[in-house]
């Protein structure tokens, strides 16, 4: 099965749940297990939350979500044109957060990495951040 989608929405906090539902709807035809679906939703949730609270810190901007299904491989790309990340390697460290004041756990990237099969983060200060995640969905027996 092959499919793709492109979605844009403003960085209102309520749209984290919207993005989660859209990705669920998109992968439903892949017939994932509850566990796989919950992994994907959680990872998307973390990436979108980051775009909302870090990328577009003090403003409302547009978040872009692209997804693609190629056979049993799902690719999800979440992009913002917000403030960007200075040091991606440091940002990806478990427990690292630039916003301890917001009660952030610093585990967002770690969660994306462990719930998906692959995670790439591309970012440039002042230009924004793109998160690319892939996951293989088990096929039915």
């Amino acid at each position, binding site marked *: 099965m092959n499919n793709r989608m492109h979605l844009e929405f403003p960085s209102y906090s309520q749209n984290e749940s919207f993005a989660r539902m859209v990705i669920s709807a998109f992968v439903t035809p892949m*017939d994932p*297990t509850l566990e796989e679906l919950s992994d994907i939703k959680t990872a998307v949730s973390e990436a979108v939350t980051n775009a909302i609270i870090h990328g577009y810190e003090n403003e409302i901007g547009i978040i872009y979500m692209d997804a693609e299904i190629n056979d049993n491989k799902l690719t999800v790309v979440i992009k913002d044109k917000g403030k960007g990340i200075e040091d991606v390697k440091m940002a990806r460290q478990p427990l690292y957060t630039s916003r301890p004041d917001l009660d952030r756990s610093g585990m967002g990237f770690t969660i994306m990495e462990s719930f998906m099969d692959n995670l790439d983060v591309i970012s440039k200060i002042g230009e924004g951040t793109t998160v690319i995640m892939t996951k293989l969905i088990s096929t039915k027996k």
Partner: protein
Amino acid sequence: IGEIRRYLRDNNSIRVSRSLRDMAYKALQIKDRLVNENSKEPTLSEIAKELNVSEEEIVFALDAIQDPISLFEQVYH
């Protein structure tokens, strides 16, 4: 042991499609009850509250059954 392992594995790989139907029928039952009690249509959040699940789950459950209302009517009335 083989049987236990198989049991665990099977239960870990429940497909989403299967788990949503129950929820959808429950949601429609509760909807009917609330319509009778309050003589008005309940909203998503009122049904979610009664079922103690998120609105999100109700929306997905309802979509998982084709034409939920008429199917429900056939099954329960």
